């Protein structure tokens, strides 16, 4: 982004404060453009012909430093790259690292279909939604165009996830593209050997293409400059992910160098998204658990430092769960408040005999507790106390979760225990056990202490509910 104050942006807006963008003023809209929470096209008047020049200029000024590349089509399409900063606290990182998992064209059809289904079916609940995997990388291990074509066809019949077509043989890539071009797959990869044929494929089908030049940044830049000259701009750079030793150290530094050149030094020639291939861990580790661990380690390193899309192999839960969570960690917007509205919520269809459970309004806490309850079909009332978005343990320690606050939550919601319950009882989190006496005194309710982790509420209910 070439601007750093809303004032610079304001100059390009219609300045009528018409409010169509949903903001009260053009200046307010300008600050949203700056923090990238709104897009230029969200100002309808600016789309008018008379502002065409300003629209185009502003779009150019606001374009992210690192190019954003789109692969796939429809709902599962992925955005890759598009970052503006080197550290997340400077703004936030955009477009979470796209995670692709491989299949090969030498797998049996049954094996292939099963694996694709596992990849596209994987989900892990986190703060109110499910984390998922994004792409399937089809590797040609046969080097046979016909076989590759069949595999690609089968994969795209089985899943709507976008594909990465992987081969260094342009004939193989061409065959795969024949049956998948309309799905806008990524071509992996153009190299200094095959660049002429691969560039033709990319031009013809207008698909994003990865440039691969292991360990040689001059060559990688040479490819990038040449492809751009040929009119191909949806580029992704793979400087090679060496799986161990000094080569891995160099790989890490190559990622830093390319991203620094792109963002800090504004070198447009190299300001493209980066691909890492932690899957190479499998080239140097025989034992599958060790390979899977090492692959997850590499995936974590390159999620933290600038990998925008990655190809992996292991779909073991102990690899996938940390991979999707480290991605959340790095891409969570540090600017958004992580809290939910306080109140007394119904989970399922509570009756007079259902439990009343107390928790805090820290989003992570609330969603964890709520999903533990609803997924186990526990009908109940969930009282969410306004602790300024702090979790249970820290808010007990910091004084935001108190007996008075708990009472206030029920009072504000007009929740009358006599009318709504047959038991006059609340359940406190195990980590808030020390509030028990206070809550009894202040509310006059019976207080039961639940387990420390809400995941254990179902088991705890078996012996502790209904209260005797």
């Amino acid at each position, binding site marked *: 982004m070439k601007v750093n104050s809303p004032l610079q942006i304001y100059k390009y807006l219609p300045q009528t404060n018409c409010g169509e963008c949903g903001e009260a003023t053009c200046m307010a809209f300008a600050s949203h453009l700056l923090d990238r929470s709104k897009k230029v096209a969200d100002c309808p008047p600016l789309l008018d012909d008379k502002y065409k020049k300003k*629209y185009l200029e502003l*779009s150019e000024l606001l374009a992210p430093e690192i190019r954003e590349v789109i692969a796939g089509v429809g709902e599962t399409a992925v955005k890759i790259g598009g970052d503006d900063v080197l550290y997340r606290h400077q703004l936030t990182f955009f477009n979470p690292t796209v995670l692709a998992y*491989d299949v090969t064209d030498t797998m049996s059809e049954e094996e292939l279909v099963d694996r694709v289904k596992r990849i596209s079916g994987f989900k892990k609940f986190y703060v109110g939604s499910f984390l998922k995997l994004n792409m399937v990388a089809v590797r040609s291990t046969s080097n046979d165009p016909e076989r590759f074509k069949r595999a690609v066809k089968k994969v795209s019949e089985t899943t709507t996830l976008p594909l990465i077509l992987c081969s260094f043989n342009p004939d193989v890539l061409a065959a795969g593209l024949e049956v998948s071009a309309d799905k806008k797959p990524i071509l992996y990869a153009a190299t200094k050997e095959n660049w002429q044929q691969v560039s033709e494929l990319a031009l013809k089908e*207008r698909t994003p293409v990865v440039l691969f030049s292991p360990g040689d940044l001059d060559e990688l830049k040479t490819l990038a400059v040449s492809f751009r000259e040929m*009119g191909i701009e949806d580029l992704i750079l793979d400087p090679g992910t060496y799986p161990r030793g000094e*080569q891995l150290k160099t790989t890490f530094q190559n990622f830093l160098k390319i991203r620094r050149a792109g963002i800090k030094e504004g070198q447009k020639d190299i300001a493209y998204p980066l691909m890492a291939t932690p899957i190479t861990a499998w080239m140097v580790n025989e034992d599958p658990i060790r390979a899977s661990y090492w692959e997850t*380690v590499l995936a974590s390193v390159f999620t933290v430092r600038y990998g925008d899309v990655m190809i992996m192999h292991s779909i073991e839960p102990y690899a996938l769960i940390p991979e999707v969570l480290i991605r959340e960690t790095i891409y969570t917007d540090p600017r958004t408040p992580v809290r939910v509205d306080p109140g007394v919520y119904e989970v399922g269809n509570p009756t007079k005999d259902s439990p009343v459970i107390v928790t805090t309004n820290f989003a992570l806490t609330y969603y964890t507790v709520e*999903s533990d309850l609803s997924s186990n079909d526990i009908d109940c009332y969930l009282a969410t106390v306004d602790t300024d978005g702090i979790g249970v343990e820290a808010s007990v320690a910091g004084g935001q979760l108190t007996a008075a606050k708990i009472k206030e939550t029920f009072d504000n919601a007009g929740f009358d225990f006599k009318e709504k319950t047959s038991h006059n009882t609340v359940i406190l989190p195990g980590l808030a056990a020390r509030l028990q006496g206070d809550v009894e005194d202040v509310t006059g309710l019976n207080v039961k202490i639940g387990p420390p982790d809400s995941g254990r509420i179902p088991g705890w209910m078996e012996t502790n509910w209904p209260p005797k």
Partner: protein
Amino acid sequence: MVKKLKINDVIELLKDADVEALEGVTFEGDIELEIEETTGIDSLFAYTLGEETAKIGLYLLNLARSIGYPVDQIARIQAQPPTPSAPKLSKLIESKFTVGTIDEWKTPIEEVTLGATSSDGGTRGHTITLGGERALPYYFDAPMPNRNYVTIDVFDMPISMAKTVKSNYEDVMEDAGEWAKKVVNEFDADMVTIHLISTDPLIKDTPAVEASKTVEEVLQAVDVPIVIGGSGNPAKDPEVLERAAEVAEGERCLIASANLNMDYERIAAAANKYGHVVLAWTQLEINAQKELNRKLMKQCGVDRDRIVVDPTTAALGYGLDYAYTNMERIRLAGLIGDEELNFPMSSGTTNAWGAREAWMVSSPLKEDSDWGPREYRGPIWEIVTGLTLALGGNDLFMMMHPGAVKVLKEITQTLFGSIKTDETNLSNWVAEVLA
């Protein structure tokens, strides 16, 4: 879905709408527009269409909008000339890649040595030096002078811990000395942390004098530098740590910890008097960290080379985003000259085991995909938590699972540059990965 429309088709579409402006307009050639149904019209429009085509495109868009064509759902319009106008290349355009180093990183991180050998009045076999960085970890701007180190937790009484961890320690939990030996001899710990947890009034309320005997035991059992931890009880810790510092006089231990809501002056005074290093612990708050460090230096007279900071570790999925960014900001601030923050950092990486993904048998959520065996989830949780912080600038890791220690050491030392292996040839990895 992508819709391909030729400009002439658009004109055809618009014809019935009786759009005056189009009358008499003819287009040379046939430009193809690719319309993708997502959101908003973006800047690519400008790049890819070129000025002239862009004009036409925008113009048509506005026309289309005026007759109700759903252009507001259109994300990108890209011109697709039938024959690419860009030149075909017969050979690559040779280019050189260059990038600079960061000038602003002028202030090195303090170097802090832990442990003292006989020549310095201690009994340790060797010392360990933390810090000294002049760049973010493993960056190419300046070599990293000291590697990362791991200290493994030992407790002065059996405690409850995740099953996957516990299975490694069941035979030594009753004896801190044996426990310490095991982590050094079998699990490759660089250091040992002895946590005097039993001193907590709510646990066993072990008197400080008695607890300090455990410290002596550990010092005799192993000759690596040690960390001495209290129970975390702010009222009792000063007394416990004071006494422990006294029995470990001259060993240059890391005293864990001083924090703002306790009598940190007593901890600092004990460390000064008996020759130790202070761990300054705050909870995910950069300003609190500055305040504590300032107080330790100015008010308590602790030397700069006797401070290590612990800005708090939260587990992967449970606040690691705060912990990571907090550390990275502290490190960056230190490097550009904030002398209240340029100290080596330590992480209570074992906090990772608090995450349910690390220890629960299976997901409490029916909708989740299968979580698989927890024996593999726990260690990787500890590894990824530590590794993320390593990348943010953390120097010393307090850990528990031997497998996690092994892998974390391997990756941090690889990035540090001290692990040499055979070279790998990636030129045909796509076909060569056998898995």
